[in-house]
């Protein structure tokens, strides 16, 4: 078992690191303070293939794999968790859903522009009454001739308003419970499809988080993904992959906070010397670094399992559970080691601490991860 990255992965990692330092980091604080979606960064990432990393070249992708994609999200999230989640939601939740479950026509029409960087994707499952209990879908889709008519709303949708292509879930048979949920592709600017007011959040403030509103929204019946009633299974399997992306984001947040703290404690002097010279600082950094490395092992393991076409749901759940917890712990310690400066915006660690929290919540809460893991142990 070789735990070192092969040369092509190291080269890709360096590419993502360089891009993050030069193009993403300079905007991170500004987009957080202004709650601004970094459209200019997204366009650059689209140009250099960052939005289609794991998809085959035949569909406009880069022909790489999940591990490469994870390295990208990690490096982006080290400097800006907002940018990391934009890539993650687009790739894992929208593009990968169409890649795994779409027809050839749907892949050509929707996956190709998503993977080649012409369009941005989003995923609409959560509703006011359906969060962790995703089965409680109220949005309805009724077939009317050659079309489906959608009515309802979704909340807390990442990339909402900015994305061009949305994978949306709606009830086609209210009497069938989870077997009555179906998945549809809806394009922005479809009549009857609008957006609510953007949410103001604790963290990832540059990420567009918004309501999707469907009011007699008519879409072609060809936009049904899979078959009627298969939507819940599509959602759950898509979220499995999405968890790897969020785990990578959490890992990046933690790793970025650790790097900043290591630099800071070497410079900050108290009692006549750098605080890096005090054992409390040293021991705290040792704990932080070990936790980051443990999270990294789980994230890369989950990505590698997916690439090897092994079952990876448990690996993904463990990776997200651990990495999100590590992100909270490491950012908390990072702020503490920065002292008063850690509370100040321009020192960045306070933003990382605010950003970290969401990784325990979205794409399946930590509690759901525990349900998945324990369910597997106790079956």
């Amino acid at each position: 078992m070789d735990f070192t990255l092969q040369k092509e992965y190291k080269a890709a990692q360096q590419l993502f690191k360089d891009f993050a330092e030069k193009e993403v980091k300079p905007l991170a604080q500004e987009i957080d303070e202004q709650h601004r979606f970094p459209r200019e960064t997204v366009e650059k990432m689209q140009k250099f293939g960052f939005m289609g990393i794991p998809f085959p070249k035949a569909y406009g992708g880069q022909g790489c794999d999940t591990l490469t994609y994870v390295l990208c999200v990690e490096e982006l999230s080290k400097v800006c968790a907002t940018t990391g989640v934009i890539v993650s939601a687009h790739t894992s939740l929208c593009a990968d859903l169409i890649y795994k479950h779409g027809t050839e026509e749907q892949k050509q029409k929707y996956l190709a522009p998503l993977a080649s960087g012409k369009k941005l994707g989003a995923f609409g499952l959560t509703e006011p009454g359906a969060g962790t209990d995703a089965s409680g879908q109220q949005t309805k889709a009724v077939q009317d001739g050659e079309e489906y008519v959608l009515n309802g709303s979704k909340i807390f949708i990442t990339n909402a308003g900015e994305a061009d292509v949305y994978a949306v879930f709606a009830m086609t048979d209210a009497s069938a419970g989870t077997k009555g949920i179906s998945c549809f592709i809806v394009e922005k600017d479809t009549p009857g499809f609008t957006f609510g007011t953007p949410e103001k959040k604790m963290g990832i403030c540059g990420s567009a988080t918004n309501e999707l509103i469907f009011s007699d929204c008519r879409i072609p019946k060809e936009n049904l993904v899979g078959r009627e009633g298969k939507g819940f299974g599509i959602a759950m399997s898509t979220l499995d992959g999405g968890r790897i992306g969020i785990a990578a984001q959490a890992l990046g947040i933690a790793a970025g906070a650790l790097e900043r703290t290591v630099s800071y404690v070497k410079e900050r002097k108290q009692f006549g010397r750098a605080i890096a010279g005090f054992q409390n600082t040293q021991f705290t950094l040792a704990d932080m670094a070990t936790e980051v490395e443990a999270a990294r092992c789980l994230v890369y393991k989950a990505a590698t399992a997916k690439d090897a076409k092994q079952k990876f749901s448990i690996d993904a759940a463990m990776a997200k559970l651990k990495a999100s917890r590590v992100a909270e712990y490491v950012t908390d310690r990072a702020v503490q080691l920065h002292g008063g400066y850690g509370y100040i915006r321009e020192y960045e660690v306070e933003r990382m601490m605010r950003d970290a929290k969401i990784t325990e919540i979205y794409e399946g809460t930590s509690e759901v991860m525990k349900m998945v893991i324990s369910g597997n142990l106790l079956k």
Partner: protein
Amino acid sequence: MRIIVCVKQVPDTTEVRLDPVKGTLIREGVPSIMNPDDKAGLEAALRLKDSSGAEVTVITMGPPQAADVLREALAMGADDAVLITDRAFGGADTWATSCTLAAACGRLGYDIIFTGRQAIDGDTAQVGPEMAEHLNIPNVSYAAAIENCGDHLLVKREFEDRYHEVKVNTPCLITALAELNTPRYMTPGGIFDAYREKEITTWTRADLPVEDENIGLKGSPTKVVKSFPKTVKAAGMKIERGVDESVQFIMDKLKEKYIL
């Protein structure tokens, strides 16, 4: 159009430290990069490829690990790569290096050769112009802008206080400044192709039509004896006062400069 780009793998000199005792560069643990001027030359070649459909070959002379900069060039969009590596080429100065690279270019064939102006570890700026002399082709150095005018190139040469616009026919050699352009990022797919799909041709001593007396350490008329940091000394100040007054003066100066 056939373009050859000469690139060199160099230590990232922003990370290099000097051994305070020996005065030599400490290279261990220092990451290696593509020389920045060379990368600009590569980007210039790739832009000509984008606009005119040129074929771009990158070459490097170095140890086996220099293949990494060739992979990077392939990932950026170069078509082919040649690694020129042999113990016989080791220890080469700019004369021997330029003879070796010129022989490789002669074997490959070209319309334009790009080199960087200078390498950040050697800082001589000699290899490119020397290659042009060996190959008997015009050399336009310090290129800050290049325009392809079909049957000729228009090159802006930049100096500290002025610039030249030079019209040059091909075949020719151009040395690039890092300021010439902003090199493109690699793509993830380009990296995977560079490492998994593309072959790098390796040439050893036997593959090059060059004389033994013009290669390697034996073929090098110059030799770097020592590298050391520049010691900066101010003029100093002579104090001609009594002992106590002088001590007080020095103490006040040290406090003024926050040394005490």
